[in-house]
């Protein structure tokens, strides 16, 4: 009897969680599904998940390949008795044929061709990678010094680190923006990266980690004649790999997804857009039905790298991201 009651409770729990899971997954479903459908299917909200994938004509492609004067004259020349309108019609039919495509291919090809999505992705990689590398270069030695070296003023510096943990970048965005503008650095990679070079959270995290590294390890390295500088990079860095990995995930996820700061410092130059910024601009380009397919394809491309990485290495990701709670 209890077994029966228990399984009822279990079923009820699954029902509740399943409803929640469906709501949470809904936008992902909508995004993927819409990125596969034709404009007509999107407008009529039909076609299931994959759409019918019926052959459609890519109107942008047709427009791009509009027959010019020379082509029409050449066609008239080739066949006697063909008038201009007829030649035009014939060429256009050929163009329409070559521009025939499947909706899914159309959406993803337009995502990459209507906006320089590839460039945005590249920017995203450049910015997130530089931020992470600089953060580590600045934070790692500082964390080592705060954890393992006794020097005058150490507590004061650590106190400052703790104080700075309280400061959200949004609150200081305006003075930073002015400073960058005065230096002529807005609309540059530098503006996207510089404010993030200092990660007090990274210092804090790595210091906590270094506290657990035994002093003997460092003493042994000193006995071997290593200087403090090589100790940081040759002893502490390898020892800190687990902490660094968690920090890397935290850093990359927050900066790949960040929209606020790029929005502040990249005011006009499209060639510097990071993925979220590019997507927002894409949206600004017009909102009629035929754009939703390519737009959802772009969203998929931008969201995919982190989501896929997360699905492959969930535990590491959750660890890395929950650390951000401390920030």
């Amino acid at each position, binding site marked *: 009897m209890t077994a029966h009651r228990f399984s009822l409770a*279990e079923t009820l*729990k699954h029902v509740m*969680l399943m409803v929640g*899971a469906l*709501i*949470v*997954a*809904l*936008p*992902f479903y*909508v*995004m993927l599904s819409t990125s596969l459908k034709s404009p007509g299917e999107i*407008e009529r*909200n039909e076609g299931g998940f994959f759409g019918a994938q019926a052959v459609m004509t890519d109107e942008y492609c047709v427009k791009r390949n509009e027959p010019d004067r020379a082509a029409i004259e050449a066609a008239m020349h080739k066949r006697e008795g063909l008038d201009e309108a007829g030649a035009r019609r014939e060429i256009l039919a050929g163009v329409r044929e070559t521009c025939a495509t499947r909706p899914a291919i159309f959406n993803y090809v337009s995502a990459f061709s209507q906006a320089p999505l590839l460039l945005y992705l590249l920017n995203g990689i450049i910015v997130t990678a530089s931020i992470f590398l600089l953060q580590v270069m*600045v934070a790692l*030695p*500082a964390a080592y*010094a705060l954890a393992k*070296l*006794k*020097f*005058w*003023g150490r507590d004061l510096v650590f106190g*400052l*680190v703790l104080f700075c943990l309280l400061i*959200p970048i*949004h*609150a*200081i965005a*305006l*003075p*930073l923006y*002015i400073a960058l503008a005065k230096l002529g650095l807005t609309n540059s990679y530098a503006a996207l990266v510089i404010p993030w*070079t*200092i990660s007090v959270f990274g210092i804090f995290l790595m210091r906590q980690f270094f506290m657990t590294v035994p002093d003997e390890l460092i003493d042994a390295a000193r006995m071997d004649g290593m200087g*403090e500088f090589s100790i*940081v990079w040759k002893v502490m860095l390898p020892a800190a790999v687990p902490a660094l990995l968690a920090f890397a995930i935290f850093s990359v996820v927050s900066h*790949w997804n960040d*929209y*606020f700061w790029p929005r502040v410092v990249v*005011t006009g130059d499209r060639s510097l857009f990071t*993925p*979220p*910024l590019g*997507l927002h601009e894409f*949206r*600004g380009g017009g909102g009629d*039905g035929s754009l939703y397919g390519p737009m*959802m394809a772009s*969203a998929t491309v*931008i*969201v995919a790298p*982190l*989501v896929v990485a*997360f699905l492959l290495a*969930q535990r590491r990701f*959750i660890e890395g*991201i*929950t650390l951000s*709670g401390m920030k």
Partner: protein
Amino acid sequence: MSTTSRAAQRAGWAFVAPALTLMVLILLLPIAGAAVLSFTDYSLGGAAPGWVGLENYQKILTQSRYQAMIEATLTYVLTVTPLSIGLGLGAALLIRSLRWGAAFYKTVFFLPAMATLMAMSIVWSFALHPTLGVINATLASFCGTGWLHAWSWFDESCRTGFPLWLGDRSYAIWTVCFVGVWQGFGFNMVLYLAGLTSVPRELYHAAEMDGARTAWDRFRLVTWPMLGPTTVFVVTITLIRSFQVFDIVEGFYEQGAGPSRSAYVILFAMYEKGIRENLIGIGAAIAMIFLACIVVTSLIQQRMLEKKAHYA
């Protein structure tokens, strides 16, 4: 001994110097800068700035535009914080008591925390589109289902059409809140799951011996008190994250901040004033208010955690 300590002295300062310099230049000076700017009418490239004293703050307290900002921000923060914590805790408790499938739900619920919020806001705004969107289409497909019509809102909507969601001022901020909860509760769930693993099993046995028979008793007497520090932590970071809402509003509304400024959240106001309209003085005043909210929240957290530590 003295040489090594002198070496440590030198190395220590050499190693913290870059971090310290950047900390001062990028974090500390700008705070002072923002504070000073908030008392001026500075604008980038404009005439020499004038000292206006408290005028910017006065405007924020009196003008209707900023009342809309305060209202939208508080609505968002006070809705999203309890809901995303409650749902996070609920999901964690349910998932932890499951016999199978826990990993699956955990993955799905955490997914929004990974996905680019700007992209997902745009997807939500498409899903909520009054004619193209899947939400209203699904709701409308239930029209004619007898028992649902007992719900007056549903009955009414079936006759007059389902809401515009983003375009209707009475729904806009709530829709923004909904996406905020959707995005944030999985994160809280993970923190609570971590907190739950640290509750000792023996406490439940002890409580049962003392007569705690129902699941509710066990929750009230053991789980909830043991989750105290986790809850303080979760409440603080959820509050802080809620004050920072920006992407959703930008993803939903290309211009402005929703119908009749109903989603004019604080960071959006700061961005609009400070960057878009180049009224840096007032933008800085908004930033200072924002900073105050964050700092006060953090200080309360520290006090609460200290208190907890005394109990332990």
